[in-house]
Every structure is written in C-alpha cells, then in structure tokens.
C-alpha cells in the first residue's frame, strides 16, 4: 500500500470510529459507554456536530478515492483487480470446504491481488457509504427533504441509517478484524496498514497468484537492474519503489525513536 492509500485507510479508520461511537451514543443514550458523551454539558450537541463532521469527512474521502481510482494508474489497477470474478466464488467455496474438512488434505488456494474476502469488504464499504450518505443527508436536511416527501420517508431513512450502521459496524468487527487481526495466519496483526508491506509468507497464503506474478515480474526486473532488489529478501517488492521507500523510512525512523525512548525509560535509574 502506498502512503496515500494508508492515509486514506487511516482517515477512514478514524472517521468511521467516530461515527460509530457518536452514532450509537444517540441510539443507546443510557448505555454505560455513552456516559462520557451524555454526562458532559452540551455533550449531545457536540456529539451531533462531530457525527456530521465525520460524515462529511467520509463523503469527501469517498470523493477523493473516486478521483484517485479514476486518475492514477495505480488507482485504475486497483479497480481492475477488484472486479469480482467467478474464481472468487470458487475460492470462497473451496475455502469453506477446506474449513469444514471436506477437502482432505486442504487444497492450496492461490488468490489474486485482492482475494474474495477483500473484494466483499470493499464493495460492502462502497454500498454502506452510499446508503449512509444518502440517508444521513436526509436526516440532516429534514426541513428541505420534507418539503417534497411525506413524513414516513424520513422515518424510513432513520430506520435504514440505524440498521445499516449495525450491519457496517458488525461487518468491520466480525469480517475485517478477523482478516487483519484474529486470523491465526496474521495474528497479532497485519502490519500492512502501517508499513504498507506484508511478508512473503502472508502473501503466499492470501494472495498466491499475485505473489507468483510479482516474482515473475521482479525476475525480469532483476535482469534489467542487476542486483538492485536482491536485498529485498523475503519482502514483497513494492510497486512504486521511490515513494514507498521514502515513506517507510520515515515511519521506521519514527518507530526507532519510539523504541529508543522506550529503552531509555526502561533503563532509567534516576538522575
């Protein structure tokens, strides 16, 4: 993942979390976890403001992502690789058969750049964002909306907004968190959202086809550029080496600063 994509993810991560908390604090105002919002003076007013702010941020993020996909080469590549194919359904089916021990021994499944889990989630996210944006704006501009539509449509928007929020939140917790955290292959965490890279082993398990393609590509490159990428070792070679290196370096630097600070604190024996 490029820095740009990681920042998009970070943006989505932060705003989605804010939306979930500030949104469900309205639906469950007496819940214990809502008390930091409800017990603060004007907390509910602030909650509404923050919810709309984050909503707008995600709408802008969606717009940005659209432009990114349309006007960058890498973006177009993402869309091309994201299109669901019949193979994805087969992959899902075979994985299920593996999981239920119907395939014995389990079949090795080689998946492309985006596997069925990721495609499902990506299109789920797009669907969710669209639904939440439309219903959210109806709820926000209720005076304008109710000039032209009957009142029950407003209630419909409220109902959809609420249940879609539950669906989206549970999808993130059940589907996404399993993929990137609780999946025994990646546990404790898939670092890709921070470093932008994943290990060859992870790659082999989740994106076997893509790994083969990349290896073949890097072989041709190796011929062209001599030993330039030999030090890559087990790492997957990034698609855009120049900007990728810069960003990972700066993040590594930050990480090493934190680490050395940690060491200093650990070995602190007083002045």
């Amino acid at each position, binding site marked *: 993942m490029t820095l740009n994509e990681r920042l998009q993810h970070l943006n989505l991560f932060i705003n989605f979390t804010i939306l979930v908390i500030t949104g469900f*604090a*309205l*639906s469950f*105002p*007496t819940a214990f976890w*809502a008390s930091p*919002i*409800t*017990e603060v003076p004007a*907390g*509910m*007013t602030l*909650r*509404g403001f923050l919810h709309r702010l984050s909503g707008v941020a995600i709408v802008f993020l969606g717009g940005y992502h659209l432009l990114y996909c349309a006007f960058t080469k890498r973006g177009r590549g993402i869309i091309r690789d994201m299109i669901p194919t019949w193979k994805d359904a087969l992959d899902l089916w075979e*994985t*299920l058969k*593996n*999981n*239920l*021990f119907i395939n014995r021994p*389990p079949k090795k499944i080689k998946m492309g750049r985006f596997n069925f889990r990721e495609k499902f989630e990506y299109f789920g996210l797009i669907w969710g964002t669209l639904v939440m944006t439309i219903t959210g704006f109806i*709820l926000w501009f*209720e*005076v304008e909306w*109710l*000039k*032209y*539509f*009957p*009142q*029950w*449509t407003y*209630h*419909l928007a*409220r*109902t*959809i907004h609420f*249940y*879609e929020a*539950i*669906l989206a939140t*549970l*999808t993130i917790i*059940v*589907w996404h968190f*399993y993929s990137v955290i*609780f*999946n*025994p*292959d990646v546990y404790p965490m898939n670092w890709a959202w921070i470093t932008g890279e994943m290990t060859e082993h992870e790659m082999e398990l989740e994106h076997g086809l893509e790994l083969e393609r990349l290896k073949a590509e890097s072989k041709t490159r190796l011929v062209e550029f001599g030993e330039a990428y030999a030090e890559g070792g087990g790492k997957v070679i990034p698609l855009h080496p120049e900007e990728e290196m810069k960003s990972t370096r700066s993040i590594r630097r930050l990480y090493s600063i934190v680490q050395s600070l940690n060491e200093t604190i650990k070995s602190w024996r007083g002045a």
Partner: protein
Amino acid sequence: MRGKEGKYKPLILFLMILSFLVVWIISIDKGWAKNSFCFECHKDETLKKQDERGRTISLYVNETEFRNSAHGKLSCSDCHVPIKDDAHAEGGKKKADKKVNCGSCHKEAEKEYLQGLHSKMIMKGTERAAYCHECHGKHDIFPSKNPKSKTHKSNIDQTCNRCHSDIEFVREHALGSIIPGEEFKKSVHGKSGEVTCISCHGSHNLRSLVDPKSSIFRSNIPQTCGSCHPEITQQFVESIHGVLAARGRTDAPTCTTCHGIHGIKAKVDPDSPVHERRIALTTCPQCHAAERISKEYRITTTPVKSYYESFHGLSYRGGDTYSANCASCHGVHDIRPSSDPKSSVHPSNLQKTCGNCHPGASENFAKGKIHSVASVKAEDIGDRIVGWVKVIYIVLIVVVIGGMVFFNFTDWLRKTIERRPK
C-alpha cells in the same frame, strides 16, 4: 355673674378631663393592683401544680414579658375568668383550671377556628391538637405583624413544625411519613420568606385535605395557587388537565401533581420535577406511561414510547436540552387535546409549532402522525413500509453477520487445528 361663669368654664372643663383621667388611671392601677397581687405568687419560677392526670404544670408567668405583650394592659382575670369569684389564693385553686376562652373577645377568629380542622380534632378527643395558645402563645402574645410574634411570617414555619415536623406526632396521627417542614425549607417558597404554611393552608379555618371546602382539596388547589399565580391558573383551568380536575377526576393532574407539594422548586433547579431534564423522563410519563390511566382515558402509552425512540427522545435521554421534550410541542399549563383548535398540536397549528425549532418547516413537514410506531401491522401505509424495512434489515443482519461468524469460525478452527502440537 355671667362674666364670672364664663371665666371658670375652662377650669371646669379641665377638672372634668382631670377627673376622667384620674378614674381611668385608677382603673388601670386597680387592674395592676390586682395583677401585682397575682404576680406575688406567680413570679415564683418553681410554682407548680399537678393536674388530674398527674402531669406537672408550671404556674410561673414572666411579668415583664406579659407586660410587653399585646395583652399587657389586661387584667389577669380578664382571661382567667373564674378567678374573680373564687377564693383562688386561699386554696380553692382548682377553680382556675378552666381553659382560657379567647373567643370572648376574638369572636371572629373563634368562629373561623370552630370550622377548622384543629378544633374538630379537639372535639374528636385528640390530645395534641392546636388550641389558640399552641400557635399564638400564652402570656407572650404579640400581633402577628410583630417579628417577635409566633405567628409572624418569619416564625410561622417554626410554630407549625413544632408538631407537624415531629416524627412522633406525624406517626401518631397517621400523616404518612411527611415531614413538610424539611421539604418546605428547601423549596422556592420556603426560601422566599414571603410564603408560609398559612399562605396555602389558611390559618384559623385550615381544613383537612378531604374537606371539599379546604384550600388544599384537590379541585381547589389551582385556585389556592392562583392567589399568587393568577395568570397560570387562568391558563390551567382552560387546559384539558384543568377541565378534568375541575370535574373531580382524581387522575387529572393539578398544580401539585407536576410541581410537587411542600418541596416545590424553581423550574431551573435540577431537583424540580418540572426541570427540563425531568419533564419527559418522569413528570409527564408518571401518568402518560401508566397503564391504568392511559387505558381509562384511551390515550395509550404509545406517545411516550414513540417519543423515547424518536430522535427528539433519544437525544433528550442523552442529556440534550435543545431537543424537544413533551412541553416543547404540547405546551405547559395550557395543554389541550389535539382536537382543540387552540391546541399547539392541532393540525392547523402544527406547522407553526414545529417551526419554532425547525425554521422554514413547510406545510408538508407537519403532515403525518408524530407519535406512531412503525410495524408491519400498522394502519398507516408509511409505518407499514418502515416496519417491513426493519424486518428485512434484521433478517439481512442475522444472515450476513451470522454467515460471517460461521465462515470465520470454521476458518479459525481449521487453522488452529492445523497448528496443534504434534
């Protein structure tokens, strides 16, 4: 001669006035002579007697206090009548035991008192019921405008509370566990210093809660409060609550149902039941979410339920005071049924009512049922659609999320089993 006669006229006048004065002074002096005769014995602080029940009663009278009191110029025998003809000092003491009759002078007050609850309780044989002296004092009576008086507005509280905030007394007379004094002290009325017990309860003629003539009888409460809050009472008696209360419906609220009784607080006080944070949580729902009342009056508990589930209600429950509560739309003292054209929730007034918070609310904005609950069985087509969407979404969530949980669990299980120690 004539001239001489004229000359003595002023002198005669002077002598006449003088003789009147002398007679008056002598008469006073005579009284005092008598009183000082009484005080010869009654100045003794240890003077006591035993009554029929064997209780010890002090017979001491503070002379200076008595002289300064409103009755200071009266003779002892003016009130303690039997003493006159009795050989009181010589030992016939029992004759003086009779209660003093204040009514012989204070006829009007006596007449009122005899209609009041305290006198009735005495007639019923209650021992600790208020006679005149319980509230006014005995030898230390002052006009009630005098700050030293027990019936001065600054002391009334203490005077009544001597009995009515005494737990023993309250228990004995089955007044519940109400200690009105404590509550009243903290109330906005108590803090004002202007309102006292007698402002609402009356004084000599105060009556029981169940007496229809009482100022605190249910249907009379709006009038009682209206003596200070006339405009509010005017609004209230025309409201649906006021009309029903005037019909004698005991379920219909009066002032005290929402505001509290002795402990009435200002509406900005968070402890007040009519504080904006509590109106829609406890005050209106105490009746409108109550099964019995809502069934009897066919108002159903749906409005409260649907409010709690609406944006207004959810935000309100989270502490938002900008969000509408019951009173925002229905009004406060002038609540009327939606069928009343004067009601703020009458269909013809809804656009304006909604517009108070939603500037630019169109005519269409206010159309449709507000307190409706969406369900697949609802009468309204819109409610039915929303109800169906709800059902579809719930099924969708269960299937999709359930499927994900199932898939991920099998995935985890396989990967965990593959990693089992061999």
